């Protein structure tokens, strides 16, 4: 039995106020695969992740994780297998220091000293934030917080990673670093994101959600080339696949300054 295999089998969920969030959702994720979960706001991505984490309970259908059906009675085992990286890193980092935050998961799983400290240090090193071990999480930059959030999850040695908007609010370099990091992991990964360029960069397949239903499951390029599908689901192609204007703003070097964008006002030129 491999815990790297995930199967959503006709899963439906309706909130108490009658909002139908998911309807007959089915898809599979295989060992080592990276799947992008995309859809407009309200498409059902968050509900799907909450069902997977066991914060909500499936009303019909089933979710299988390597043969283990996700139910309230199996949730402890499921959480040992899945590593959740939440959208807001501030929600994920709650201990006084980064070290203690990273130690929290393995300690809950019963890892004790003298194994705990080397495990935490190794995880911090792996995510490139060993130098931040003693820092309070709230003093970190956005990219560092995100790396710390990933480290907190990796320390528990999950079989599968579930990431909600992993590059949310990151600057381009931090975003690129996270993408490279995720590419380096061998875990199966389910990545919910509005950053379609990231999905195009990272994912082997894409699950498109629309109004709680699966609109498509296909390789990213197939999905993103299908303009009709994207339009129907309230999405746009990744920026890199969109047509750029024929002539972008021009750059010139201003003496004593860095590069500056030169604005050409037609009226001024006339």
């Amino acid at each position, binding site marked *: 039995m491999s815990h790297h295999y995930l199967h959503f089998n006709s899963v439906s969920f309706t909130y108490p106020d009658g909002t139908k969030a998911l309807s007959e959702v089915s898809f599979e994720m295989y060992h080592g695969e990276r799947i992008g979960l995309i859809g407009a706001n309200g498409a059902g991505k968050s509900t799907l992740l909450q069902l997977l984490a066991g*914060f909500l309970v499936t009303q019909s259908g089933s979710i299988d994780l390597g043969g283990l059906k996700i139910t309230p009675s199996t949730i402890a085992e499921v959480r040992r297998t899945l590593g959740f990286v939440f959208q807001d890193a501030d*929600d994920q980092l709650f201990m*006084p220091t980064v070290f203690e935050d990273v130690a*929290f*998961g393995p300690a*809950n799983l019963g890892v004790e000293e003298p194994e705990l400290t080397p495990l935490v240090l190794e995880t911090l090193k792996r995510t490139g934030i060993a130098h931040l071990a*003693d820092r*309070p999480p709230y003093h970190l930059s956005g990219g560092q917080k995100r790396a710390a959030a990933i480290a907190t999850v990796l320390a528990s040695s999950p079989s599968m990673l579930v990431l909600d908007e992993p590059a949310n609010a990151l600057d381009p370099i931090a975003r690129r670093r996270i993408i490279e990091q995720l590419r380096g992991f061998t875990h199966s990964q389910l990545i919910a994101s509005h950053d379609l360029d990231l999905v195009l960069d990272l994912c082997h397949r894409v699950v498109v959600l629309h109004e709680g239903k699966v609109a498509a499951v296909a390789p990213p390029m197939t999905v993103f080339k299908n303009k009709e599908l994207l339009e129907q689901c309230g999405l746009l192609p990744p920026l890199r696949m969109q047509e750029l204007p024929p002539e972008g703003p021009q750059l010139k070097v201003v003496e004593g300054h860095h590069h500056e964008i030169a604005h050409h006002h037609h009226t001024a030129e006339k």
Partner: protein
Amino acid sequence: MSRLSSTIEGWRSFDSFAAAGLISCLDPRTIILSALCTVIAMTGAGKGEVMVLLPLTAFPLTLLVLANIPPIWLVKRILPVLPFALMIGLLNPWLEQGTVTLPGGAEISTGWFTLASITLRALISAATALLLIASVGLLNLSRGLAGLKVPALFITQLQMLFRYFFVIGEEFQRMERAWRLRSGSRRGRMPLKLAAQLLQNLFLRSLARASRIHNAMLARGFNGEVPAGAPLHWRLRDTVWLAGWAGFALLCRFNLPLLLGAMLTGQPQ
């Protein structure tokens, strides 16, 4: 940085003091027990026994020095306690009938002593509690309490309460910032009606945020108890520290005040 932001940052420095200073070399149980000795000696003191209480200020002062905590940090945090203490005992000098003859022969109401006693008790309690957390750190304090067989439920409650304070603070900070950005020409205080509305909203927001944090904890195997961390080690220095403070507290309670009294009044015990 707004006043609120700097206040939150200031309170957050609680945990940052714990790693530095000589206090971190001691077992957290030692500090907890010695603080307990001080508090017991304080509560055991009579109504107006100021001379019993005065030497007990040595304990918080020692923590302050050994943990390298700036005195201004402490003063800022215990001053808000003062009005409450004064409010309780302010009328005592006029309401109490008894008088005390001072060395010069002047007579004053015993109420002045009870007022001083109430104020000192409030200050010692607040300073000891604050410095205990600041010098030991919340995580080590929890480990110490667990080591003293305090129920896990109580320890988890304490930790959650401490963290929730910051969650509320941060959410209020965001709302207050949003209000300031859109308050136009209005300056200064927030109107009371609006503040009440924001307060309602604050609890909903902080509850939602706390629930997200709780979910993140659950996702990492949290089962209602925060892991205790590395095992604690009781050393000789812990025994010396505890014996020293326990003895001092006992001395304060029974002998030191009499000695000091004899020294001040020039009369034999």
